[in-house]
C-alpha cells in the first residue's frame, strides 16, 4: 500500500516537472536584446497581460481585451492576451509576449507596477502601457482616466434629476485617484444647482453590501433621492436600496443599469476599451509617448451612460456640460485645493467628509 502510494506520488511529481518544463519552453529565458530588435518587423503586434482578476472579470481585464479586439478589427494588428493566475506570472507573461515578438505590451492594472518596473528597462525597444498607474521609464505610457470628468457629468444629471434638491455619494475608500470621483460629482452638482445639499459617506470598504445599503437608506431617509456610488460591491447595496425605495442610484465604471433598470439613471463610464484602442493606434504609428497620458472626454474615453429614465432637460444639460468641458470652458477640479478655490471650503466640507 505504502509502495503504491510512493509510486503514485513520484509519478505525480514527475508529471508536474514535465508540465513545468512545458511552461518554460513557451517562455525562454530573457535572451540577448539583439533577438528582439530583429523581431520588430514590418508587422505590428500588441499583447496584453491580465492581472489576477483574469480575462473574464467584467472589469478592467475584459474591457481592455475588448479594446484589443477593436484594434484587431479596425487596425488589422495581431493581438493576444496572456492571463496571469498569480502575481508571479506578470514578469513571465511579459517576457513571453516580448519573445513572441509583440511590440506593445499593455499591462492591466496597478498590481503590475513592480513587475513592469523590473522588465521595462531591460527591453528598451518594446513599448509598454499600464492602466491606472505609471512607471517612470521612457518606454512606458501610463494610461490614466479623467474620472473627475465623467463624475462631473453624472453630478449634473443627479442635480437635474433630483426632486428634493438633495443627493448622496457613497465612496468605497479615498485616495488621490478615488477623490477625483468626489470632486467631479460635487462640482457638477453644485454648478447645476448651487443650493443643492450633498450627503457623503465613505464606507472605507469595497465589499460591505449591507453597509452600502444602509448608508444609502440613511441618505434616502434624509431626503436624498439620487445616490452615486463609487464603491465596488459596497455599491451593489446602494443600488439595491434605490430599487427597494423606488428612488435613483448612479453606477460607475460600466453601465450598471442591468443591475436595476428602474433605479440606475446613469453610470459614470471609464471607456478602457477606447483608451486601449487609441494606445494601440498610437504605438502602431510610432507616436506613443512615454509618461502619463490622460484619457478623457475629448478623446471619448470617459462619459456617462444614457438610460430611458433621464429627462430631456437633464440630457440637454449634460450634453451642454460635456461640450463645455471639451472646449475647456469648464475646468473640473482634480485636487482639494482646486475644489476649495472654486467652491469654498466652509460650506462643503468635502475633504473632511472623505478623509476625516
Amino acid at each position, binding site marked *: 500500500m505504502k509502495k503504491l502510494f510512493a509510486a503514485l506520488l513520484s509519478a505525480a511529481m514527475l508529471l508536474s516537472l514535465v508540465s513545468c518544463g512545458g511552461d518554460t519552453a513557451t517562455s525562454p529565458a530573457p535572451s540577448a536584446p539583439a533577438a528582439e530588435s530583429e523581431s520588430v518587423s514590418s508587422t505590428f503586434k500588441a499583447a496584453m497581460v491580465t492581472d489576477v482578476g483574469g480575462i473574464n472579470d467584467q472589469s478592467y481585464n475584459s474591457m481592455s481585451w475588448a479594446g484589443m479586439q477593436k484594434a484587431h478589427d479596425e487596425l488589422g494588428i495581431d493581438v493576444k492576451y496572456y492571463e496571469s493566475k498569480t502575481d508571479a506570472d506578470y514578469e513571465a507573461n511579459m517576457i513571453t509576449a516580448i519573445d513572441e515578438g509583440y511590440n506593445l505590451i499593455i499591462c492591466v492594472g496597478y498590481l503590475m507596477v513592480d513587475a513592469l518596473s523590473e522588465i521595462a528597462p531591460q527591453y528598451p525597444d518594446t513599448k509598454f502601457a499600464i492602466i491606472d498607474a505609471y512607471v517612470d521609464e521612457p518606454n512606458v505610457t501610463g494610461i490614466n482616466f479623467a474620472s473627475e470628468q465623467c463624475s462631473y457629468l453624472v453630478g449634473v444629471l443627479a442635480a437635474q434629476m433630483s426632486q428634493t434638491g438633495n443627493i448622496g455619494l457613497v465612496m468605497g475608500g479615498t485616495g488621490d485617484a478615488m477623490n477625483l470621483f468626489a470632486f467631479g460629482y460635487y462640482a457638477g452638482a453644485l454648478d447645476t444647482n448651487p443650493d443643492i445639499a450633498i450627503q457623503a*459617506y465613505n464606507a472605507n470598504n469595497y465589499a460591505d453590501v*449591507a453597509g452600502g445599503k444602509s448608508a444609502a437608506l440613511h441618505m434616502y431617509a434624509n431626503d436624498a433621492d439620487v445616490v452615486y456610488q463609487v464603491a465596488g460591491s459596497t455599491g451593489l447595496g446602494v443600488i439595491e436600496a434605490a430599487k427597494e425605495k423606488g428612488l435613483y442610484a448612479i453606477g460607475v465604471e460600466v453601465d450598471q443599469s442591468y443591475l436595476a433598470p428602474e433605479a440606475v439613471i446613469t453610470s459614470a463610464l471609464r471607456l478602457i476599451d477606447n483608451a486601449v484602442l487609441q494606445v494601440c493606434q498610437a504605438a502602431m504609428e510610432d507616436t506613443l509617448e512615454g509618461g502619463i497620458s490622460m484619457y478623457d472626454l475629448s478623446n471619448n474615453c470617459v462619459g456617462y451612460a444614457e438610460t430611458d429614465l433621464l429627462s430631456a432637460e437633464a440630457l440637454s444639460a449634460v450634453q451642454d456640460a460635456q461640450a463645455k468641458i471639451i472646449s475647456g470652458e469648464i475646468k473640473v477640479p482634480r485636487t482639494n485645493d482646486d475644489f476649495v478655490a472654486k467652491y469654498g471650503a466652509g460650506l462643503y466640507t468635502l475633504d473632511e467628509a472623505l478623509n476625516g
Partner: protein
Amino acid sequence: MQQMIRDIAVILNATLMYTPPLLFAALGSCFSEKCGVVNIGIEGMMTIGAFVGAAAGYYTGNPWLSFLLAGVAGGLLALFHAFACITCRANQTISGTAINFLSSGVSVFVCRLLFSGNTETIPVSNKLPLFLSGLFSWCAEHLPAPLAGLFRPNGFLDNVFNTYASTYLAFLAVPIVWYVFYRTQFGLRLRAVGEYPRAADTLGIHVAGVRYICVILSGILAGLGGASLTLATVSAFRPSIVLGQGFIAMASVIFGRFRPQGAMLGCILFAFCSGLRVIVGSNTSISVNLISMIPYVATILCLVLFVGKSQIPAASGLPYEKSK
C-alpha cells in the same frame, strides 16, 4: 427630534439587515463546535450558499426553493468536512481552511460557466418576501387614525421591521436550536459527544454518526446564511460578498459561550455597531478608520468586560478514535 427618530430607524434596520447571515452561520457554528468538530469552513459554506442561492434564484425564479438549495449546497460542502475530520480524522482546522479555498474557487468557476464568463450573477427577479408588508398595509388602512399612522409606508415601524423573511427565520431558528440542544435526547447526545466522546461511546452513542449530523447541519445553516445575503440583502452574487462574515459568526459563538442565545447576542451587537457606523460616519469629520473600527472594538470590549471565561466543549477539535 425627527432626525433622531430617522437615524434610530436606520440603525435598527441595518441591525436587522446585518444579523441574519451572521446568525444563521453562528447557529451552524454552534452545532459543529458543540459536537466537538471545529468548523473554520463556515465562511466557505456561506460563500457556496450565497452563490447557489443567487444562481438558483435567477434560474428558477423561486426564492424559497433557492434558499433551500443554498442550504443543501452548504450541507454537501460540510459533508466533505465531516468525512475528512470524522472518518479520516484529519486536522480540523486544515480541512476547514481547505473548504474555504475550495468554495471560493468552485463558486467563481461555476459562476463563469453559468453566466457566460462573469464572476457576478445576474440579479434575481424575486427576492425573499417582505412578509410583513401585507400586515402593515392592512393596519395602515383599517386601524383608527393615530395607530394607523404608525404603520404608514416609510414610517418608523415600516422602515425598521418590514424586512425580509430571512431575518425573521434567523431569529426563529434561535429558540429551535436552543430547544434541540437542551431539551431533546439528540441535543444531550451531541453535547456529550462534544464533551467526552469516550463516555458517550461507552453508553452506546454512535459518536461519528452524531458528529456527521451536526457538521452537516452546520453547513446547511451556513448555506442559508450565505443565501440570505444574496436573496435578501442584495440580489446578486459577487466573489467578495461574504468576506469574513463567517469568521465574525464564529467569533460571536465564542462571545456567546457556545450557546445559541449567546451567539445571537453577539451577532446583534456586531450588527448594531455596524449600523451605528453608518450613522456616525455620515457627514462627519471623525477619521473613517476610527469609525470602521467601531464594531470590532465594541465586540472586544464586551468580550473582555462582560463575558466571563468561554467554556469550550472539552473535546472540541479532537478527532475521536474508538480503539485507543
